[in-house]
């Protein structure tokens, strides 16, 4: 039985379902939630910043100031490969692992049914 569990664990790790990066993703989500607009913009993926600035040409911090993004604590998190989902008390964030570490790819996300989310901030 112990061997079976060990093999299952190896399979899960090999399949990329590793939680090695979980603390780092949680920390970035936490920093994002607690940060001011400038900090939040620094923690967005390039694609998300581009999408935000496309909507608000005056700049990312100004745009984020106007959006009702969550600022609560981390409730739960999951990492799958280079992607992560972090549930805050008042928001759901989606993160991607980049060359600079974890960055927020989508924020201000609200469940829209069948497990999908509509997000106020997201790169395309």
């Amino acid at each position, binding site marked *: 039985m112990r061997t079976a569990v060990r093999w299952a664990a190896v399979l899960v790790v090999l399949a*990329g379902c590793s939680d090695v990066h979980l603390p780092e993703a949680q920390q970035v989500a936490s920093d994002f939630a607690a940060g001011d607009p400038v900090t939040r913009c620094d923690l967005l993926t390039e*694609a998300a910043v581009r999408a935000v600035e496309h909507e608000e040409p005056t700049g990312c911090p100004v745009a984020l100031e106007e959006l009702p993004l969550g600022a609560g604590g981390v409730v739960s998190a999951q990492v799958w490969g280079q992607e992560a989902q972090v549930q805050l008390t008042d928001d759901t964030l989606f993160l991607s692992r980049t060359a600079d570490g974890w960055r927020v790819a989508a924020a201000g996300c609200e469940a829209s049914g069948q497990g999908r989310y509509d997000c106020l901030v997201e790169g395309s």
Partner: protein
Amino acid sequence: MSGVRRFVRENSLSLGFGLLFLLSLAGQALAGAAQMNEDRQAEGLEPVSLVQYLTSSSFAVDVMENWQSEYLQFALYVFATVWLVQRGSPESKELHAVGTESDEEQRVGSHAREDSPPWVRAGGWRTTLFSRSLGLLFGGLFLLTWAASSVAGWAAYNVEQLQSHADPVSWVAYLGEADFWNRTFQNWQSEMLAVGSMAVFAVYLRQRGSPESKPVGASHHDTGATG
């Protein structure tokens, strides 16, 4: 002939296919990493390194879903050809030999010879197990690789879920997803087609010198003959 050259010559089938396997796997790794990075670039995501791709669920599921179907093909072929025959096919045994055959024909029990494998001469459960070891091995490898395919497919599916801003699903929920069964059946159908095609085409066509074919001059009605 030196020892090494003789070893290579006498094992050229396994060595040749082992080398082709490694080259193909390397090709899949390079092409798969390039495709993943094209997709990630299109979605505004950072590219991944080759090592990151090789340890990704995407690569794992692409490899495992093919392995499981190959082992299923051989497991079914080994088991099914005990009972199913094809008139005129070198892939089939003689029509009258359907079933597990007698101890004499299978050289077991009192009919075991001096050069028979030790577990054949041992009798009892060892002989029973050894008598089915080929099918059991392929069946076991199929189940293992299918399970690995389901875990890797689950992880890859959840990566896609997160990329499209959706909740990840549990492994049990993934087993009910169309993604898992589409990956499974698309591989199974091709294996069944390959086996069926081989069984039928080999009735009427020949490959001179190949043990997978009948001798060139053999009748279309000859069953079980190999050349």
